[in-house]
């Protein structure tokens, strides 16, 4: 009886959230506004979803949590879909995760199948995004009791596991990644110590009393270095794709043929979407891993693997579904454990906190309508974006030709605005410019900057949970069965990542070696 009642309540919450999203003009309007913005951030080289979130922070400042979160998440969920158009048509990935699409997408374009490639990739992205949230919706009731049983011990170890994933994010630059992660953690300690109330590293500056927020850190270490990189050359130096209008001369029938390819390869589309969702749930793997792993899966299950790389449509479908499905999966650890699945979700986490949302296990109890609204927002924005791009995709491709010289100062203004509004202190602007120099040198030398965000977000969580667990159990909590299991996971993860790194020792720039600088950036 109780279970049936609870299910009815869950179904009621599920569908009332959808209805709320559809019939509230403000929410629907924000979602519709987020779609062109997401396409814009996806299409323009050098911007991407992470910068998209931080640059839109000023616009959600002061908004209620639900509209603000729906707006940001809808935009973030479709950035990769937006990036598909210029990546396939011009053969240049606008942001990292779109890279696997090029392997077969661009050869298809060169074979005169631009419309089919675009139709297949865009509809696969839509399918992936929707299957991703369906998987999340199905998993929710299963994880609910699991999430609610977590104590500070589990949260401490979960945060440490998240931090350990720096070793995966850093790849070959393990030492540099750990340094950057420690830097993020140290910056996260600025403010009042949660246990004693003592000021730490505030230097008696009022603006540092309530800590250093994620948004300012991301803007300083991401937005500013990216803009400096784009703006460092003289006019015409910055890389934008050469205009090739021939590739946009395709018909809608060709696009529709690509859409039908998803039905012809429905097994692949569904499998890679489910794969993408689960990859998205694993902190540290991120969008690039989802795309490449799904591509590798498509090659491995093909009876004719030699077609790949020469324009196989399966090579376009698999990474597209995986890339977008991981957004739904990434929401699970981010919302319910406060552990971001990747650097994009880490920034989203900071934005949600700024909006007044408190990610953690209690969300499943107190904020379920909000959770469902966010899930529906991802599904709907994926659907609408796919339909929109299938129709007008070729016209949107011209966004990729926006010149960096024009983009840089405008983005800089909004980055400054975001930094200021995040804390309401003008001193943050000086910190932004100062830290930006460190970020820029890191960016030029390819030090792994996502590790900074992991340290900044998870460091304070780890410290707070440690103190709580220590207060409850003393140091004895370190030898409890849960701790031993979690420690084993950490050790195994570290060993696997280190083995992976040292296997590549013959290549340049392994862990413990100098920063590789011979490759172009």
């Amino acid at each position: 009886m109780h279970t049936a009642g609870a299910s009815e309540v869950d179904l009621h919450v599920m569908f009332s959230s959808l209805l709320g999203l559809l019939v509230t003009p403000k929410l629907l309007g924000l979602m519709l506004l987020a779609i062109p913005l997401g396409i814009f951030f996806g299409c323009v080289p050098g911007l991407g979803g992470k910068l998209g979130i931080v640059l839109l922070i000023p616009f959600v400042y002061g908004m209620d949590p639900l509209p603000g979160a729906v707006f940001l998440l809808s935009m973030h969920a479709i950035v990769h879909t937006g990036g598909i158009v210029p990546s396939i048509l011009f053969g240049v990935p606008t942001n990292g995760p779109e890279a696997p699409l090029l392997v077969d997408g661009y050869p298809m374009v060169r074979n005169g199948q631009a419309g089919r490639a675009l139709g297949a990739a865009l509809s696969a992205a839509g399918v992936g995004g929707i299957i991703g949230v369906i998987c999340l919706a199905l998993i929710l009731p299963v994880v609910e009791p699991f999430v609610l049983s977590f104590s500070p011990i589990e949260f401490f170890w979960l945060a440490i596991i998240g931090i350990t994933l720096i070793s995966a994010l850093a790849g070959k630059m393990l030492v540099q990644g750990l340094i950057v992660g420690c830097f993020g953690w140290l910056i996260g300690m600025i403010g009042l110590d949660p246990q004693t109330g003592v000021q730490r590293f505030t230097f008696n500056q009022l603006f540092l009393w309530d800590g250093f927020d994620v948004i300012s850190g991301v803007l300083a270490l991401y937005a500013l270095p990216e803009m400096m990189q784009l703006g460092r050359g003289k006019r015409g130096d910055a890389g934008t794709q050469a205009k090739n209008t021939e590739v946009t001369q395709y018909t809608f029938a060709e696009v529709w043929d690509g859409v039908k390819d998803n039905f012809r390869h429905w097994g692949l589309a569904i499998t890679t979407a489910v794969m993408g969702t689960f990859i998205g749930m694993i902190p540290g793997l991120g969008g690039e891993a989802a795309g490449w792993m799904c591509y590798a899966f498509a090659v491995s299950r093909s009876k004719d693997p030699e077609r790949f790389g020469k324009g196989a449509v399966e090579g376009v479908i698999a990474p597209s579904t995986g890339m977008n499905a991981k957004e739904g999966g990434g929401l699970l650890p981010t919302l319910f454990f406060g552990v971001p699945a990747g650097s994009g979700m880490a920034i989203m986490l900071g934005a949600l906190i700024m909006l007044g949302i408190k990610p953690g296990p209690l969300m499943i109890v107190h904020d379920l309508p909000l959770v469902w609204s966010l899930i529906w927002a991802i599904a709907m924005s994926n659907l609408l974006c796919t339909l929109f791009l299938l129709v007008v995709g070729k016209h949107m491709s011209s966004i990729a030709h926006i010149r960096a010289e024009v983009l840089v100062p405008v983005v800089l203004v909004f980055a400054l605005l975001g930094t200021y509004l995040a804390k309401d202190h003008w001193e943050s602007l000086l910190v932004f410019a100062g830290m930006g120099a460190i970020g820029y040198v890191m960016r030029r030398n390819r030090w792994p900057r996502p590790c900074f965000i992991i340290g900044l977000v998870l460091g304070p969580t780890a410290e707070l949970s440690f103190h709580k667990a220590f207060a409850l159990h003393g140091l004895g909590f370190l030898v409890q069965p849960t701790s031993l299991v979690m420690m084993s996971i950490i050790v195994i993860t570290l060993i696997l990542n280190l083995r992976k790194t040292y296997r590549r020792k013959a290549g340049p720039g392994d862990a413990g070696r100098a920063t590789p600088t011979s490759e172009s950036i």
Partner: protein
Amino acid sequence: MNSHPQAQPTSGWRIRFTSTVALSVTFLVIFSSAAIVAWLSYPREAASMPLIIGGIGAALSLLQLITELRASRGDYEEQIDLRKDVPIYLWVWSFVIAVVAFGFVLAAPVMLFAYLRFRSRESWWLSLLLPVAVLAMLYGVFQLALGVALFEGLATPLVRDWLASVGVAGG
């Protein structure tokens, strides 16, 4: 760091102050200072985590510094080109200083115009259009529509008071 990003000759195996060496030194100083400050200034409970993280960070930075110094003696391709990087960084600071002094609504359009016209060499038309659009966004959307109180700058109230005192504008 040097002004030429090309690979440097290996003559004499001389240690050079490269950008990665500078980065490692910066982190070493930051972590060491944090650990020392925590040790000297905070109670034990509050100091424990900064000491652990500062200590680990300092040790790793030292390791990286040694690695980078060794690497700097060989073929090293410098990624920082001061001729290209300093001007753009000075533009960033000029944006920041202008906003700190005169606030968003005044400084952002002016600096945007200056950048577009004098750095990007855009046409007068675009150099004026974009700042006007940004001004409309900042003042119209943020200040008026959304009711966000944007920072008006440290110098703006002083200038306004001075103008009022000389009778140019109302107080």
